[in-house]
């Protein structure tokens, strides 16, 4: 009987993310993963039914980790600026400390796997952020806006800055490092743009 080994399991998850980020989803296989971990293909099949099951389970776990990290200490009763500031702080910290995670989800985005993952991520966010937005609009701090309009102004700048930082370059190849000063200067403009 083959038994589970938590260390091996963690190694498999970590290497899977690394491989998918480095070589893309299409080039990913259980065989390659086994070689990268120095274990047998059979061992991987103890933990996962097949390649799809592996990818979905790993993505789901990453998504849950990220959601907990971003929403964990978030207070939906906070004022608009406080709440958004906390979101920016949590999201930027998570992405900067887990660079592979963001790139991993980039790989998944165009794939068939993403719909299953969205269900996991979106439900929690909808609940918490939904409550936050309701409060903020009720207080008259922000106008009701279509979700995409709100998100594009509230969060897209943050994701862009993080991407520039990950690539080490901004517009036209200009060298770039994200600093607190730049992050919060951008944030101030975002808040100004959204506040009534």
């Amino acid at each position: 009987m083959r038994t589970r080994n938590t260390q091996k399991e963690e190694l498999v998850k970590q290497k899977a993310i690394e491989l998918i980020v480095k070589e893309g989803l299409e080039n990913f296989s259980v065989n390659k993963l086994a070689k990268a971990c120095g274990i047998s293909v059979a061992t991987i099949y103890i933990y996962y039914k097949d390649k799809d099951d592996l990818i979905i389970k790993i993505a789901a776990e990453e998504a849950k980790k990220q959601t907990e990290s971003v929403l964990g200490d978030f207070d939906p009763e906070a004022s608009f600026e406080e709440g958004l500031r906390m979101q920016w702080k949590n999201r930027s910290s998570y992405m900067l400390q887990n660079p592979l995670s963001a790139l991993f989800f980039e790989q998944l985005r165009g794939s068939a796997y993403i719909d299953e993952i969205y269900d996991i991520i979106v439900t929690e966010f909808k609940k918490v952020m939904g409550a936050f937005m309701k409060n903020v609009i009720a207080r008259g701090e922000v106008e009701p806006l279509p979700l995409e309009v709100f998100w594009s102004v509230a969060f897209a700048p943050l994701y862009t800055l993080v991407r520039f930082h990950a690539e080490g370059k901004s517009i036209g190849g200009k060298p770039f490092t994200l600093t607190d000063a730049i992050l919060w200067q951008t944030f101030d403009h975002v808040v100004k743009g959204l506040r009534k």
Partner: protein
Amino acid sequence: MQNILVFKTNIHSIEDLFTVGQIMTEIGIKDWNVDRQDIDCVLRIVEPDCSCQELIDVVTEAGFYCQELE
């Protein structure tokens, strides 16, 4: 802790899968799948009531290649 057996096979097509499905039903195995995306067409069986060799026998009798995956 689940008992899981994995085999290298040549179960490629949907028809192959259907045939194997019938075999699994006959021997009473409910939790199984084949990863046909994998180069080894891995047959994975959870909590089999029969032995590894019995499984190999019954799958090879149906005309497939089946070897325990190391």
